[in-house]
């Protein structure tokens, strides 16, 4: 898995490539927590278009990010979920807690809920 960051004004976009599983979910968690808890970036967006698979440890990392975003009153946004990633999020029954969009354009345009 690879994770890289793009920094826009008040926004960080993480581009993730590859599966998010027990082997690499700690890297996702760390990246999210640095941006949200330490840097207090107002909006963090996860580009998951190239993530074909995510397991419970990956979901747990996103949940940690979501909790952090609520604590610091910023936003964590996901976009580009694959069929498999969406199925797993639905199975967790947590999908409605996340702000999810189809693509980057929509994610950037979305007003705060």
């Amino acid at each position, binding site marked *: 898995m690879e994770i890289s960051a793009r920094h826009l004004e008040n926004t960080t976009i993480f581009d993730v490539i590859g599966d998010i599983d027990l082997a690499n979910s700690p890297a996702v968690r760390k990246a999210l927590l640095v941006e949200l808890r330490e840097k207090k970036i107002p909006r963090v967006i996860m580009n998951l278009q190239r993530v074909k698979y995510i397991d*419970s440890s990956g979901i747990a990392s996103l*949940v940690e990010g979501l909790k952090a975003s609520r604590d610091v009153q910023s936003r964590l946004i996901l976009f580009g979920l694959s069929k498999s990633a969406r199925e*797993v999020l639905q199975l967790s029954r947590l999908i409605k807690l996340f702000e999810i969009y189809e693509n980057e354009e929509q994610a950037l345009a979305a007003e705060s809920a």
Partner: protein
Amino acid sequence: MPRRQLLLRLQLLSNPAVLCGVRGAVSPIAEVVGFSEEDCRAITLAVDEAIANIIRHAYDGKLDRAIEIRFNQISLENGKKNGLEIILLDHGAKPKPDALEGLPPGELRSGGLGLHFMRQSMDTVVHKRVGSTNRLYMVKFVR
């Protein structure tokens, strides 16, 4: 009694780096038995979560312990009902009773989802302790 045929036996180390390779093997095996694409993804998730649980809980994150996985095709009613039985064996710690209960999903918590995923993905998930071995039996039938 169901008829069993061993399709694949894997021996691996308790290293999360192997998960990707195991996932790559599961879907083709499930396809051979006749599962749909969606069910193949569900079975792959169940196996991934089961191995992750062994690594994290039975072996406490140690990377060099042994895990064995057996994939058996099973058939009932003279072959009218086909399924896949997956048995995972490890020699780690016995799970704590509350670890087998799982946690209710839907709450904003970061733990306890793995067992829920396994139960949602498979028809049967049963843990047995035999001597010093944990045996996890997971079965799913083709619909």
